[in-house]
């Protein structure tokens, strides 16, 4: 498979920016165009992914997290590696300058990710965080892709769809940080529980809780509650969408927040955290024992 050199793509990016700045492109305003980049955001797509929906998510995310986005699309076997550049631009409300982020689309067969990985290596925005969002297992299994992982500031997967705990275990040995959107989905529920116990009248009863009941499959919530309330009994056979904390003479019920309609709020939360996540790191080994 003929390789594409990173220099060619970087040259294409230069041409792209020159073009954006020219009045003929219809993008630049009197105030010019602002090239925004705070990280490299790599999105590794699955064959069955809805490109438009994922593109929409990326377009929304870069407003808060301006990035050089590298979208890795799985191509057919034996198809040549292909790369193209584009820009996403928007005018923030009330401002007069277009803000633009660059996007590089790379199409390659997942079975042979070596060339794609080498290309990506040369396209990382220097000295800035690199976040990889793996939407499934297709790329993680492929030879050569693993070379990228140690360079990632963070790898985001979703054990709620596509990946399993084994992928997390594997990633933790090679990537600096791993995030799981299944954990991110628990934030709203956990926040409500925490806020409930911010009230001193409720906080005073925490010690009396001796049993935790969560629905089957809610291992992250179960693990988190076990860490917050060590020594309690955990049952993972509760009614769907409900959490119950019980003790002598007390009982607290919480609803599990419904999942958001898109991945945007989850990714938005994860992209805002590029450093250590001590709560997740403590919960993960406990959750692994509950699976």
């Amino acid at each position, binding site marked *: 498979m003929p390789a594409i050199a990173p220099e060619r793509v970087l040259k294409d990016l230069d041409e792209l920016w020159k073009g954006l700045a020219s009045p003929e492109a219809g993008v630049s305003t009197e105030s010019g165009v*602002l*090239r*925004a*980049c*705070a990280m490299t955001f790599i999105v590794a797509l699955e064959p069955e992914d809805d490109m438009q929906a994922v593109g929409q998510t990326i377009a929304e995310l*870069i*407003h*808060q*997290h*301006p990035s050089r986005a590298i979208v890795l699309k799985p191509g057919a076997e034996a198809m040549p590696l292909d790369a193209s550049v584009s820009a996403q631009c928007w005018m*923030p*409300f*009330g*401002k007069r*300058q277009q*803000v633009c982020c660059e996007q590089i689309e790379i199409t390659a067969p997942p079975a042979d990710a070596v060339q794609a990985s080498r290309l990506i290596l040369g396209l990382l925005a220097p000295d800035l965080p690199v976040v990889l969002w793996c939407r499934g297992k297709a790329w993680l299994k492929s030879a050569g892709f693993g070379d990228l992982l140690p360079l990632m500031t963070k790898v985001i997967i979703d054990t709620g769809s596509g990946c399993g705990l084994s992928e997390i275990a594997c990633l933790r040995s090679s990537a600096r940080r791993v995030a799981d959107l299944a954990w991110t989905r628990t*934030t709203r529920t*956990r*926040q409500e*529980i*925490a*806020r409930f*116990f*911010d009230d001193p009248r409720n*906080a005073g009863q*925490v010690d009396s809780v001796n049993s935790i009941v969560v629905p089957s499959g809610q291992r992250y919530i179960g693990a988190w509650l076990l860490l*917050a*309330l060590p020594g309690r009994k955990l049952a993972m056979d509760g009614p769907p969408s409900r959490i119950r904390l019980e003790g002598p003479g007390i009982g607290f019920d919480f609803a599990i927040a419904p999942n958001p309609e898109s991945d945007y709020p989850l990714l938005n*939360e994860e992209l805002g*955290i590029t450093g250590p*996540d*001590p*709560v997740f790191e403590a919960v993960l080994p406990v959750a692994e024992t509950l699976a």
Partner: protein
Amino acid sequence: MANPFRDLLRFERRVPPCAIVIFGANGDLTKRKLLPALYRLAYDRRLPASWAILGNSRTEMTDDAFRERMRDSVKHFLEDTPFDEDLWKQFAANLFYHPGDISDPAMYAGLDRRLKELGQTHQTAGNALFYLSTQPSYYQPVITALGQSGLARGEGWRRVVIEKPFGHDLASARELNRCLRGVFDEHDVYRIDHYLGKETVQNILAFRFGNGIFEPVWNRRYINNVQITAAESIGVEGRGGYYQESGALRDMIQNHLMQVMATIAMEPPAVFESETVRDERAKLLRSVRLMTQEQAPMHAVAGQYGAARIGSDDVPGFREEPGVAKDSQTDTYAAVELYVDNWRWAGVPFYIRSGKRLPKRVTDIAIQFNSAPLRLFNSDDGDGSGRPNLLIVRIQPEEGISIRFLSKSPGSGMRLRPVSMDFNYGTSFGERSPSAYETLLVDVLVGDATLYSRQDMVEASWTVVQPIIDDWNARKFDFPNYESGTWGPAAADEMLARNGHAWRVP
């Protein structure tokens, strides 16, 4: 006991149920800043489910009339957020109004009744914030009345926010503080200085103490001088009568710019918590060398703008502005030279200036470093002086940080030219930062005073400027002494020239 369920990284700080009572609700600050900020917090879903705003002023109006006025204001003054009619309807359902004179005890009795009603209908849990959006002369009467009526104590927390100016000199600042302390505990008093709520000012601490490379050079060995500029291109814009009572020294330097100076010069706190940060700011302000009234003429310059033609417009001088006395001695420009007597800063001048009708609107801090000890190269502009390195923190209009350094000009030979390395907020942080008022309102509602001034900080900064005030009150200036559209009076340039320094042109 710490909440075992907290996840500080992911959970938003929660604003508790509360009522916000705004005195002066029909005034400019409420319309331009407070309500738009609160609306924006509602837009971002930062307000709790149980909240209410109760506006007060002398003007008789119903709740609905108040809501209509606030709708117009929010729509007009909302800067970077679309106005959502549906959101407004939900938001406005929490707005109420209670007319009355702040000098009338019956008004406070009525306020108490309405707060109790709101506690029932809106579950505000007895928490109340009293926001004094009035003229400063009303602060003490309102605070005293809050105490006498029992409103300063309730089922939940009771806090008070007052805007600057905190007094008009040291004595009145102390008097105001005594009045406050007679009614509220210090930790329930929030003195707002909205500059401290600006993202770029907060970022100074992140920049200094979050990175390893700057603190080692952040001292007298490497820094030659610091210049803090807050310039406006507009005049008093019809508020001459109000501005006459304050002037640039009181309006900007005594509060905002001295707080900025404290942020630039303070020592790192041991932990980043409200009281430790404020302790360091206060310590820095107490370390500023006090001048005597006799020394003030050498270290402070007053100015007042005169008429000029700017572009195609003839702009009036300050004394020709409506509401301004023909012989006004008010400073529309002030520049001061301060020194911090501590090991870190001994001998480094801090030049602070602020003025109206200057060439452009800009607020920034320029830290000028010492020149290289040996000039090996010729500078490109041939003046032979060599340009010192500058670190510039831009607060407005384009927030960011720049470093100016010398680079070789392309071509043969070794000629150097200054270049700039820039960080812009927009480039790295996407769409929007919260406004200072959004940040500060959330902070006071969650009880975080880190970005608010404390009594000792206020009194320390008044102590520094009091000799200047005393000197200026005793003198009669030959005003105006700078033309509108210029960078201020020549005396300000002379003040720096005595040290071999010059104001940079921002």
